[in-house]
């Protein structure tokens, strides 16, 4: 065998024609802070991948960012300290791409698509996808109408998310933003058509990413999840590339006719990384020192979320970007930008969080613009009144302490509001399938829980769900889970089940 290889090599070497040709090269004239200024290479493309020869046959990749009159501003994707002035630079004529495929499921990868979880090679069955791809056009899209359940009562009932939608999760630090995204990921295992999930960690602590990975593995969610990790210690270019890598992986699943959910945790840090790069590249700073194209950065990323029509495979890419606000200020630059790009937002408030209302969703400020067209019929039927009742309760909430002086109708509204607030409370990492949310909300909104003490709501909920599972699995739970419709027959069964349960 080795004899054949040697013979083949001999032939190859003998027949090799060097054919020297002129090729375009550049030279590093300045390098610092992960940025290199390169002279020459006047024909380089924007976002072209460049190879910097650092000696002894080694190369470091760089991305051409600023194409100036005499220089190219490039961001270094490898060990920036190894690059020195005078190093030769060669254009590759390619834009940055990563390898994607089903083999990525269950793995933790870097923004450049390399495995970083120590679980072995990613395999050879991967396809190369460019990191910066145009969003699907209008013709290939379909309106968002299939629900993507998060398993969170407040979200699925009042702020429904559809497959292909972009729903922003916004709030101060420590308000449960990541928990909502993780619940949405975990909840996919209860779905009849689960979405493949991509969790993109941007600028987070390594320990937190490791914790998330471990948790997702424990609950079995890594069986359909990919983690793209760009921890806080990574250079700014990697933080900048991470969400694009996540979107690219998601697009692979969308292109193959499947549904994908990508969580960008979080885009505030992404914007900060882009600001850092832009300032180092000497781009003009604008508001809050962000560059002028910061809106375009996020809009082109989030536009890649789509629901494709059947002619294009019918896949979808749902995006859940996360934005961290400072002291609840949603009118800052990046939050307003992303709010205007997305199809709605889940607004989390510290006050609610510390009052014990968790998830701390501010129902008044949270919206889903795609909304009810992407909601299961049963949920739509049950939760229709929920938002209105809570809005009425909020108006009267200030009078709660004078409750004894109020008229009967007002007191009833306040009591109902308090009850509904209690019903909507849900602990972390405990997503509920929609067919368990529907009966609970039905009971609460139709007065079956009136008079129940607030502290007993949780107990009622868990015992009632156990009862339904034990006594009405065949005639209620399974048909509802299958059809997603609460028809008259199922409603009658539910009514009688609630009445029977209350008697017990």
């Amino acid at each position, binding site marked *: 065998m080795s004899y054949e290889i040697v013979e083949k090599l001999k032939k*190859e*070497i003998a027949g090799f024609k060097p054919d020297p040709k002129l090729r*375009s*090269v*550049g030279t590093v004239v300045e390098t610092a802070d992960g940025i290199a200024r390169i002279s*020459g290479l006047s024909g380089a493309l924007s976002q072209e991948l460049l190879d910097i020869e650092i000696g002894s046959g080694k190369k470091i990749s760089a991305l051409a960012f600023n194409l100036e009159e005499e220089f190219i501003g490039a961001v270094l994707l490898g060990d920036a300290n190894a690059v020195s002035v005078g190093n030769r630079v060669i254009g590759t004529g390619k834009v940055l791409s990563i390898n994607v495929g089903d083999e990525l499921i269950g793995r933790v990868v870097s923004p450049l698509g390399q495995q970083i979880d120590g679980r072995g090679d990613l395999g050879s069955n991967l396809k190369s996808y460019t990191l910066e791809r145009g969003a699907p056009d209008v013709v290939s899209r379909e309106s968002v109408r299939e629900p993507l359940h998060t398993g969170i009562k407040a979200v699925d009932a009042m702020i429904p998310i559809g497959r292909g939608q972009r729903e922003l999760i916004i709030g101060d630090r420590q308000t449960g933003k990541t928990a909502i995204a993780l619940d949405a990921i975990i909840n996919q295992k209860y779905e009849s058509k689960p979405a493949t999930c991509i969790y993109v960690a941007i600028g987070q602590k390594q320990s937190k990413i490791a914790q998330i990975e471990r948790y997702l593995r424990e609950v079995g969610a890594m069986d359909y999840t990919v983690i793209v990790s760009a921890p806080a210690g990574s250079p700014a270019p990697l933080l900048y590339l991470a969400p694009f890598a996540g979107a690219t992986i998601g697009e692979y699943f969308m292109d193959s006719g499947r549904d994908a959910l990508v969580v960008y945790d979080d885009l505030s840090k992404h914007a900060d990384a882009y600001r850092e790069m832009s300032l180092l590249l000497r781009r003009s700073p604008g508001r809050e020192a962000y560059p002028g194209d910061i809106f375009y950065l996020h809009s082109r990323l989030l536009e890649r979320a789509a629901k494709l029509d059947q002619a294009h495979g019918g896949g979808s890419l749902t995006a859940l970007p996360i934005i961290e606000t400072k002291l609840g200020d949603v009118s800052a630059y990046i939050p307003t930008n992303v709010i205007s790009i997305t199809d709605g937002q889940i607004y989390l408030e510290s006050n609610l969080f510390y009052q014990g209302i968790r998830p701390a969703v501010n129902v008044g400020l949270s919206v889903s613009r795609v909304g009810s067209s992407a909601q299961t019929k049963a949920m739509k039927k049950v939760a229709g009144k929920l938002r209105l009742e809570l809005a009425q309760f909020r108006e009267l909430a200030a009078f709660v302490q004078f409750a004894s002086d109020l008229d009967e109708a007002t007191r009833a509204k306040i009591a109902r509001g308090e009850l509904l607030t209690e019903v909507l409370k849900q602990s972390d990492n405990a997503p509920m399938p929609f067919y368990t949310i529907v009966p609970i909300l039905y009971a609460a909104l139709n007065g079956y829980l009136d008079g129940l003490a607030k502290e007993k709501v949780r107990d009622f909920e868990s015992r009632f769900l156990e009862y339904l599972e034990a006594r009405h699995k065949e005639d209620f739970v399974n048909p509802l889970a299958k059809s997603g419709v609460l028809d008259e027959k199922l409603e009658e069964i539910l009514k009688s089940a609630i009445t029977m349960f209350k008697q017990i």
Partner: protein
Amino acid sequence: MKYQAKNYARAFTELGSKPEQIKKLFAVMKKNGDLLQAHIVVKEIEKIEVKKNNGHMIEVEFARAQGALAREKMLSQFGKYDRVVTKIRQDLIAGARMITDGEYELDMSLAGRLEKLFT
């Protein structure tokens, strides 16, 4: 740094690149605190002068030092106004590599051939 090297070089050449101006140029650079980039200014002046006469900045890298005859032969390949600089780079193993105007490379070295063979 008050002004870029490129601007000093341009101003100097537009004044006619007269030898008596050199002292003045460095005096101005000293006044502006830009004397540290004097070598870059000189290089820029060189570039402008070569370009003005339709010449090229040529950099030829050899694997080892060349004899006088070989050097003469090599220089005769270029035009009168071309500025040729030679360098020794042992990592080329054998042969030579030429870069024109810092942008176009013609690689005739053994290292380049080997790289081509294996990539």
